[in-house]
């Protein structure tokens, strides 16, 4: 059965569609950690981009040393989560009540980490070997297996975080703390512990995004920041703090980007995405799922 856009064969359509989904998943993996941290703590975490890059480099180095991509990825996630724990407990928990300091503090962390990576490893992009090299056939098209892996892990993360928020004790405490932290504390919820755990999960998601996308996009000191801008857009349009919104808008932006390249140069596609987002926000300032209550 052939169904296609004008000028597109079904195999081309499938390729663009999958590109859009995998691109959306990469944005979502970066945005998910940001959304959790913003939704709960109200902190716009610029350091997130640096944690993405650290995840990429950590995966690269450990995979090179051990010969295993998976060991590299999980090792990098563990190390970056640990760094997240140290950053949150040493500095960030002091600035939650002071948004300007939070902005400056996390931006400072971003600059320091990115410069350290650049100093140590240079600015040139480096490639991570994929654990799933090669291609699969799909609707007459051949498609990189690693991109399918990104799509699968992206969906798994979305389901996992959704389940964490909906069905666990921590999810309930995150919801309560994000809504009204003082009332939650009265009920015995240790909000400091909830903040710390959430930040560590956010850091782990950043590392996952960096390590997993390394084989596709290559690894460089600024890799995180290039996704951060789209991730912020996704968070704003999805509705600040709405995990569901981030997921949906990531997929939409992925598709617009993929199919937009059919008609326009990438720069203009990106410009179009931002203009569309601005117009959308003018009419719906809280985004798709934004409410005073977060994590619906």
């Amino acid at each position, binding site marked *: 059965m052939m169904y296609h856009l004008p000028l597109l064969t079904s195999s081309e359509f499938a390729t663009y569609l999958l590109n859009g989904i995998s691109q959306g998943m990469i944005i979502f993996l970066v945005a998910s950690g940001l959304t959790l941290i913003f939704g709960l703590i109200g902190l716009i975490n610029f350091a997130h981009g640096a944690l993405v890059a650290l995840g990429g480099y950590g995966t690269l180095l450990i995979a090179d040393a051990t010969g295993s991509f998976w060991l590299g990825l999980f090792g990098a996630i563990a190390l970056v989560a640990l760094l997240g724990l140290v950053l949150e407990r040493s500095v960030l928990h002091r600035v939650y009540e002071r948004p300007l300091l939070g902005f400056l503090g996390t931006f400072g962390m971003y600059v320091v980490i990115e410069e350290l990576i650049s100093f140590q490893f240079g600015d040139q992009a480096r490639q991570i070997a994929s654990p799933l090299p090669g291609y699969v056939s799909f609707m007459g098209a051949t498609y990189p297996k690693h991109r399918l892996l990104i799509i699968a892990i992206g969906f798994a993360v979305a389901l996992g975080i959704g389940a*964490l928020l909906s*069905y*666990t*004790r*921590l*999810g*309930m*405490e995150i*919801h*309560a703390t994000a*809504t*009204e932290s*003082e*009332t*939650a*504390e*009265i*009920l*015995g*919820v*240790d*909000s400091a*512990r909830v903040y710390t*755990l959430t930040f560590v999960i956010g850091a782990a998601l950043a590392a996952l995004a960096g390590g997993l996308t390394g084989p596709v996009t290559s690894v460089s000191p600024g890799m995180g920041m290039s996704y951060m801008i789209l991730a912020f857009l996704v968070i704003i349009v999805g509705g600040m703090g709405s995990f569901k919104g981030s997921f949906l808008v990531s997929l939409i932006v992925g598709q617009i980007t993929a199919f937009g390249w059919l008609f326009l140069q990438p720069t203009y596609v990106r410009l179009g995405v931002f203009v569309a987002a601005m117009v959308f926000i003018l009419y719906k300032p809280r985004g798709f799922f934004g409410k005073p*209550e977060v994590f619906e």
Partner: protein
Amino acid sequence: MLSIEGLTKEFGSLVAIEDLDLELEPGEIHGLIGPNGAGKTTTINLITGDLAPTRGTIMYDGEDIAGRSPTDIANMGIGRSFQVVQYFPEMTVRKHLRLASRDPTRTVLSAFTPRTDYTEKIEEIAETAHLDGRLDTVAKNLSHGEQRFLDIAMVLAMDPEVILFDEPAAGLNHSETEEVRQIFEDMRGDYTMLVVEHDIDLVRALSDRISVLHNGSILTTGPPSEVVENETVKEVYLGE
């Protein structure tokens, strides 16, 4: 059960609580009354850790808890209610009670395991707090009286030994106040309760003992009949 000695709280040059002694006997309902500004809410805030005392000890289970954090104190078994009801507007009654119910053995890892539903316990509490049938209603849709009952239910879900109630009947009409009295009667003996309340009839009806607070110190403590007949109490509080 809970023994307060020499408790003092100064805000700069203002002495809000001065050398206060108060003893709660296990299982009693203890009324705490006094004119506005006498320091009733401050006393509760000092016990719960919301304020740090300047001096004095608060002994609970053989430990001085003065100055500990509110979360620590809540987890040790001292619950409280507020003058202004605190709740999550979009959350159902059931979720409030689930959140307030805690597994004392929980660890960091157990936060990631499927949560416990506490269905049986929650239904029992809802019945005690006159909220049966309202478990799946979101809090903002409850009447003011029901929101007060929710406040009581949330404290009960925390499995406290001691409960500090700050004006549990504030803003309630006559029949709702009567319901609060019935709820407290049902709780009698199961908990040690300190009840700060302006409705003197309610306090008299409920309390095993009453303490009168005046200018940050305890004026007198005794059975309700004795306290309301006390000449000084009549003068400073009852205005007779």
